[in-house]
């Protein structure tokens, strides 16, 4: 009799459920929408950078993982590489926005296009809602936070590997 190891369906975006990621997400929302206006200053000015850099690569990782799931391809072996790539892309993009005027303009226009979607449907002038960003090289101190995601994804991999064989294939198919 052969016993096959249990096939565990990976939870897409599970790294975002880690307490570190959840705290970062809550801080990002709270700081952006409450604390910055209530307590303007250096701490609230930098807090969102650190929190955003922590969770955004995990968001990219989850999107990529979902893409793999849709195509039926295995994501397990690419997970860490994807985490590293997501962190690197996030860090590079952040550095570009904060360190160059061209990057800041791209960010303004790109994010503005998304934020202004409601304007397009309401008949208001989309040009009136360009996103705003302050180019500030001192914000680059937060760059290492982008790589917290690599650690979180690594934790997840480690947790999965000793006891079970992770699979991208839904358990109902096994």
């Amino acid at each position: 009799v052969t016993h096959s190891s249990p096939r565990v369906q990976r939870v897409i975006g599970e790294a975002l459920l880690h307490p570190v990621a959840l705290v970062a997400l809550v801080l990002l929302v709270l700081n952006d929408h409450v604390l910055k206006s209530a307590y303007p200053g250096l701490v609230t000015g930098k807090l969102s950078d650190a929190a955003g850099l922590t969770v955004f690569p995990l968001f990219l990782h989850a999107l990529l993982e979902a893409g793999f799931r849709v195509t039926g391809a295995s994501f397990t072996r690419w997970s860490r590489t994807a985490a590293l790539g997501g962190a690197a892309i996030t860090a590079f993009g952040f550095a570009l926005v904060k360190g160059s005027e061209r990057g800041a303009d791209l960010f303004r226009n790109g994010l503005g296009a998304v934020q202004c979607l409601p304007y397009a449907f309401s008949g208001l002038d989309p040009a009136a809602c360009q996103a705003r960003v302050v180019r500030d090289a001192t914000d680059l101190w937060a760059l290492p936070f982008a790589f917290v995601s690599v650690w979180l994804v690594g934790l997840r991999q480690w947790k999965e590997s000793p006891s079970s064989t992770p699979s991208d294939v839904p358990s109902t198919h096994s």
Partner: protein
Amino acid sequence: MAARTRQLLASLAVLATGLASVATTPCFNSATAQTPPTTVELGAQGSEASVVFRARTDSRIESVEITARLVSGQGSVEVIAPEVWLRERDAGRPIPDGGAVGPFLADVNGTTQNVCDGVCAELFEVRLRRSSGMDPGSVELIVKVGAETKDCADRDSDDYVVVERVP
């Protein structure tokens, strides 16, 4: 926790992260500084004068207000500013007799000329043209510069942004 529940929670976390990333709202305060009134002498109709100003900040200059007032003489003057600084619709707008005009908003749509990287100096020129009047006249000119402050800070304008006339 059941895998289905974890997936539901993780999906919510992914959605929340996406929304939080898109709805990010950097906060801004403005620091402003203005020149003391500068008097510029102009001849009769058609004569021009030029005044150069320097603005210094370690952030982005977001607005320039130019107020010009004809304080002696009859007729009117026009403020002619570099297009890079002023929106086209404001440039060259005639000033009513004895009145003031402004604010002129700087073009903040990506021109590099109005962006400082670190502590820097920005020079800009305000040109005045006497558009009517046969006698010499004096124009009082005030330039006010607003800059975004970083980190939501409400900075003291005295040291955050400076604008001065260049002799």
